[in-house]
């Protein structure tokens, strides 16, 4: 038998520090370059939104008609629109609207979806049947059509668009939470919690919810991206933000007739939507990889 040469690779054992799962996820996320790019994009737009009054050189709702559709220049970085307003300033203020609608509609859907999903998943029986059927029915309608119908009922405005988007996305989160609950209910650690005599309410708060959080966060982040696009789509169809609010989708549709003469009025709002959405998608992807160990490879 041949002599074996043993190569020893020494790998430093990580010290006995406490690593909570969230810390672990953050570490993994930090290593993900694309996710960090996404985070940077989002932070950038958040900063733009927060400091809009300081960043924007002009008010978003005032312009001189004589300055109509002027190309980008030192004075107007992104040019001016049909009302002679500064496109850059409008895009900057627009960040507020998009982030606001995206975030709050998703918060709305998450809260409602989580409550319904928990009820359905944990109590089962007819509650589950009822809620699941309602979700099925809602999902049977193409979402944008449903949103349009809801806005048609409520009347076009930013708030109503936000509400419509929140409503149409409830089933997404509801189903997610329900399926998480169903699988977590069978997990041994939930069984163990029952075995020590824990009440259902506490099981939900202590075990089910925290362990459903990761997928909710991932889906929620992606959901913000979708919601921003949906809001812009409603704005584009004239069913969302109302003038002079500088909502990106609305800016696009208002300026589209000038696309040949003043393409900048269409290009910049569109680019902003795309970038923001891209940012949320990137970070969503990264979060999924970091939070969902199954996806790791």
């Amino acid at each position, binding site marked *: *038998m041949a002599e074996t040469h043993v190569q*020893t690779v020494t*790998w430093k054992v990580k010290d006995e520090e406490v690593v909570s799962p969230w810390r672990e996820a953050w570490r993994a996320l930090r290593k993900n370059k694309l996710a960090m790019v996404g985070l940077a994009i989002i932070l950038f737009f958040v900063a733009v939104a927060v400091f809009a009054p300081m960043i924007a050189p002009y008010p978003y709702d005032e312009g001189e008609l004589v300055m109509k559709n002027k190309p980008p220049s030192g004075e107007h970085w992104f040019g001016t629109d049909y009302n002679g307003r500064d496109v850059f300033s409008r895009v900057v203020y627009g960040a507020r609207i998009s982030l606001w609608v995206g975030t709050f509609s998703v918060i709305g859907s998450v809260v409602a979806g989580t409550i319904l999903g928990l009820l359905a998943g944990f109590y089962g029986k007819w509650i589950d049947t009822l809620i699941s059927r309602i979700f099925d029915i809602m999902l049977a309608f193409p979402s944008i059509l449903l949103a349009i119908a809801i806005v048609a009922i409520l009347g076009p405005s930013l708030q109503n668009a936000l509400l419509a988007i929140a409503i149409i996305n409830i089933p997404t989160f509801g189903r997610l939470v329900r399926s998480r609950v169903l699988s977590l209910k069978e997990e041994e650690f939930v069984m163990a919690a029952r075995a020590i005599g824990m009440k259902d309410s506490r099981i939900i708060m202590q075990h089910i919810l925290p362990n459903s959080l990761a997928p909710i966060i991932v889906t929620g982040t992606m959901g913000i991206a979708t919601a921003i696009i949906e809001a812009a789509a409603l704005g584009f169809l004239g069913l969302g933000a109302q003038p002079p609010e500088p909502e990106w989708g609305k800016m696009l549709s208002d300026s589209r007739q000038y696309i040949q003469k003043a393409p900048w009025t269409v290009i910049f709002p569109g680019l902003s939507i795309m970038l923001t959405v891209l940012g949320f998608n990137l970070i969503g992807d990264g979060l999924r990889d970091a939070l969902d160990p199954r996806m790791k490879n």
Partner: protein
Amino acid sequence: MSDPVLQIENLQTHFFTDRGQIPAVDGVTITVNKGEVVGIVGESGCGKSVTSLSVMKLVPNPPGKIVGGTIKFKGEDLVTANEKRMRDIRGNEIAMIFQEPMTSLNPVFTIGNQIGEAIRLHTKASKKQSRDRAIDMLKKVGIPRAEAIVDEYPHQLSGGMRQRVMIAMAMACNPELLIADEPTTALDVTIQAQILDLMRQLNREAQTAILLITHDLGVVAEMCHRVVVMYAGNVIEEGDVRTILKKPKHPYTKGLLNSLPKLEESQERLYSIPGNVPIPGSLTVGCRFAPRCDQATDLCRSEMPQLKAVGDNHFSRCWLSE
């Protein structure tokens, strides 16, 4: 040593991960002779599966890579063989069955299709011929209603049946070497007995050499001619079954044997090896078993012992067995 089919020498297969380079297999040497059943035992994570996958060159790459050593199959070095040559060998000259019969068969193709595929790959058999051969093979591994089963899907079979199908598939091209990676771990004892019986029978009839990987010393005792004990990526002891199970030299092998509850006698207390199996990659200098060994000396802790002959065909990697 007569007529070796497989000679693994100083095999090193490492994984290159975020956490660094993990030497899952770190200098393993194993020889399998014609018609012989060689067992590899060891606890979870010690590198048994990686060794066997290395032979098939099926280690997922990246992150895994064979970084050193040779694997000679009938004199031909597989480490340097190209992919095309490996495809000829796989399933034809060397076949493999896996631990999880439940997931090792493709759920969306029929049994006949999957066995037939293996046959068609390596022979010029037509669809019809390969199907007939598949039915023959199924009968041979003791599957009732073979004619009907060929057209069924894996989920319609029980775990034991699936493992038989896996064996049928592996044996379809009369391989010279069968690598069985924990073929019965997922099965119940009564079913395990059936499968082991079947494998023994195949070994006897077709003179197929078997490299049997398991963590169950009982299975080893029943099946193998020779045993290799692995610990943390190394071979630490090797010899024929009787020697290893009756007169082990290495403290780890001894400890392992002692920690098993016995069926035939009642013991007040079991022996237990202190500590845990090392996390792969967290290697220290010296003997890898030293941290858990109650006879460890300073030498053990500072220098890695070599695998040395300690008797007739008996090798041990321990300073104490000199």
